[in-house]
């Protein structure tokens, strides 16, 4: 078999490797997109008093049902929000609670959010019952729960995309 000079292989290989190491334009765009996030908040009442799952949240309950064992899941409210990076929004929750949601920006394909939940305490004061920051993948959902509500528990599912 006829031998091929090494440079005939080396030159194209070197050029292609160089191209491979260059930052990919689509990755660069993903890194710091300055776009708004669409947040969808599901406020759900979970209890053992009834049976069944609200058809509007069946897709959601299917995702966390393995971890929670309530017999009934009812949608209390569904709150859509559109938040620009740095923008914050207050959302009223049942039981004299309010949730402050702040969109902190994108990190790659993750959306960084800060969530503060406050509850009305004595003498008109509010106490902070939760302060959390997380980075959720686009299209993902996180669940916050445990608050007393009508003999059951209040669940707050936050989806971001």
């Amino acid at each position, binding site marked *: 078999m006829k031998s091929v000079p090494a440079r005939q292989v080396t030159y194209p290989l070197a050029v292609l490797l160089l191209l*491979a190491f260059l930052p990919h334009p689509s990755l660069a765009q993903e890194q710091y997109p300055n776009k708004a996030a669409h947040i969808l908040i599901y406020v759900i009442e979970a209890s*053992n008093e009834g049976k069944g799952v609200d058809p509007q949240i069946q897709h959601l309950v299917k*995702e*966390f049902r393995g*971890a929670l064992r309530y017999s009934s899941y009812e949608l209390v409210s569904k709150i859509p929000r559109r938040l620009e990076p740095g923008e914050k929004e207050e959302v009223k929750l049942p039981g004299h609670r309010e949730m402050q949601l702040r969109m902190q920006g994108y990190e790659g394909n993750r959306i960084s959010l800060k969530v503060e939940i406050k509850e009305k305490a004595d003498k008109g004061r509010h106490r902070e*019952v939760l302060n959390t*920051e997380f980075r959720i*993948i686009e299209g993902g959902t996180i669940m916050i729960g445990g608050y007393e509500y009508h003999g059951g528990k209040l669940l707050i599912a936050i989806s971001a995309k």
Partner: protein
Amino acid sequence: MKTACERVRELLGRFHDNELQDDDYQVVVEHLHACGECSREMAKLERISDVVKKHYETISSSEDFSGVWARIAPDMEGLASDSHPWWRSFGRIFWRPRSLWATAAAVAVALVLLFAYLPNTQKPAVAANDCIIDKVESENSSVMVYETDETKMKIIWVIDQQNGDTVQEGVTS
């Protein structure tokens, strides 16, 4: 021992091609002036040479060698000088049929590296609900964070101690 004629006739071919050293050339010239037989031999050699030359010219004039030269010329220039532009030699590598397999192999190796090994291009497989929790705080409550097995959904569960919550009856693990 060789005679003068025999020695001169051995030199006639090179004499005709003008390849002799000065002293041999002089010997042949003087001998041809003096020897009629060798002069005739020399004339015969010149006639044969003329016939061959004319025949070659007839053939070569009917052939077109311009295309051959056009193909040879760039290589000749490349060999004559190393200062030709890099893109020209690079282009030749790609366009020569004999290097096609080598180019294809190089492309294949580069693609394998690009999609399989380079960290910049690798996107790790992540669950649809993948979430990194950086901070969880509560003033008066305990907080439990866990994840569902299959869907990898993070659940932040607040245990309200002020209201006397102890065991979370709905939580499985």
